């Protein structure tokens, strides 16, 4: 999946959960400071992203992400690791 597509998917999930319009979610917009997303919704976003991409990542993985860019990077790293793991079998 292309980087832009990953970002778009994550942005859609955030909008679904928080109703923050997609236009307000730039790469570096802070979830906590600028978008005022509460802790429960942040956990939900982490779960939704993990479920969407079937990452099965460790629970702490999403605990500190605060921007779209960080989330996308985390997803890309996990996807690459999975591909690497598959290739290695």
């Amino acid at each position: 999946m292309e980087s832009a597509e990953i970002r778009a998917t994550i942005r859609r999930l955030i909008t679904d959960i928080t109703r923050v319009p997609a236009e307000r979610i730039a790469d570096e917009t802070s979830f906590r400071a600028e978008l005022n997303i509460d802790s429960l919704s942040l956990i939900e976003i982490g779960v939704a992203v993990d479920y969407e991409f079937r990452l099965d990542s460790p629970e702490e993985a999403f605990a500190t992400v605060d921007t779209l860019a960080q989330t996308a990077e985390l997803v890309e790293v996990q996807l690459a690791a999975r591909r690497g793991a598959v290739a290695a079998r």
Partner: protein
Amino acid sequence: MTHRVGITGVGVLSALGDEPAAVSRALCAGEHARCPLHPPAGADPAANGGFAGLAELGDAEIAPLRGFDAARYLGAETNLRPLDGAGRRLAAAAALALEASGWTAEACAAEAVGLVAGTMFAGMRTIAEFDRRALEAGPQYVMPLDFANTVFNAAAGQTAIRHRLTGPNATLGGGPVAALQALGYAADLVRAGQARAVLAGGVDELSAEALRAFSRAGLLSGAGEGPGVPVPFDGRRDGCALGEGAVLFMVESIADAERRGAPVLAEIVASASAWAPVGEPGRSGPAEAPDEVAAALARAIAQVLGRRDGAALALDAWSSSASGDVGRDRTEARGFTGALGEGARAVAVTAVKGALGEMLGAAGGLQALVLIEGMRSGRLPGIAGLATPDSDLGITLSAEGRAVDLRLGLATAVGFDGAVEALLLRRWEGEHFATR
């Protein structure tokens, strides 16, 4: 001086609409909101509120809220994701009730308004979906916002958050009795000085889980050959049709209402709860011993009427929880006649569930609503769909609405598994000044 308590506003979501006077008019005109669970070929598939599958339920009817959009009541900008179906319905009813009773957002911020919400299943759909997600995908994939809604008091909590209701916040489980019990409890809280104003009523959401559960328990009409008769007190009744909705009444002391110039729609005179064991839990039909439950209801009615000899106390109308259930409708009639004796036949009878289905946690609220509207309009609905009244019951039944000078109205409910509730409402005629 005894603290007299009354109702100053109501918010309702029902299959016949969200405007109390319009709902009452529709009921008086004999309209009903039932539709087939499985729309016939060629019909709009969304007409049944969007239920798919459930093939084993055959000819069941339902009375869903059609086109319910919580955003219309809670604001287009509000993030509704945290709320589930039950929460949206209750919060929407609260918005309507607050507006109707003149309780602005500023007023709620300044005063700790309470909330007592009755229910049967609460967020059962959320609970089931949450649990099934854990089973299918693994416990790490359950959705946190859904977890918050898996507690039975979630709808009440969500409603309090949306409307800044900082007073007592109680949820009452009990299904068909719960909204009446909630009204009684709200009156108690106001009298006890725990809150000056309390929203009281109930909510239940129609769900595939509820439909399956009721079907498996043999409670739904239409399970046998031919069309079902989910009609209260009908001689051919064979069960209920499930409905849904939410109702909330603003309950406050009459002195307070008059002080702020708010009209009092009705006085909550008295309430009573009781219980007796049903033979086999969950069974309806010609049960061997529903008499104990009838006796319990007779006691509760006698308690609210304040009389021990059971003589009618100028009761003008009775709003029953009868739903088409063979055994429970009969139990409720027996309880009523047990309390009123010969006077029972003189009382005008109505039962809203023929038109609106079994609304469970919201049902008692609709029962009270038709009494309150009747006090204002002078009309009481008949029983929609009543074609062959059950003649064994000792009560006067009518399919048509009629004129009634409604000063004193009784609402009763018989729950599943033996709980009963009675609530007495009186038309408020400003006696407050007369008693000083």
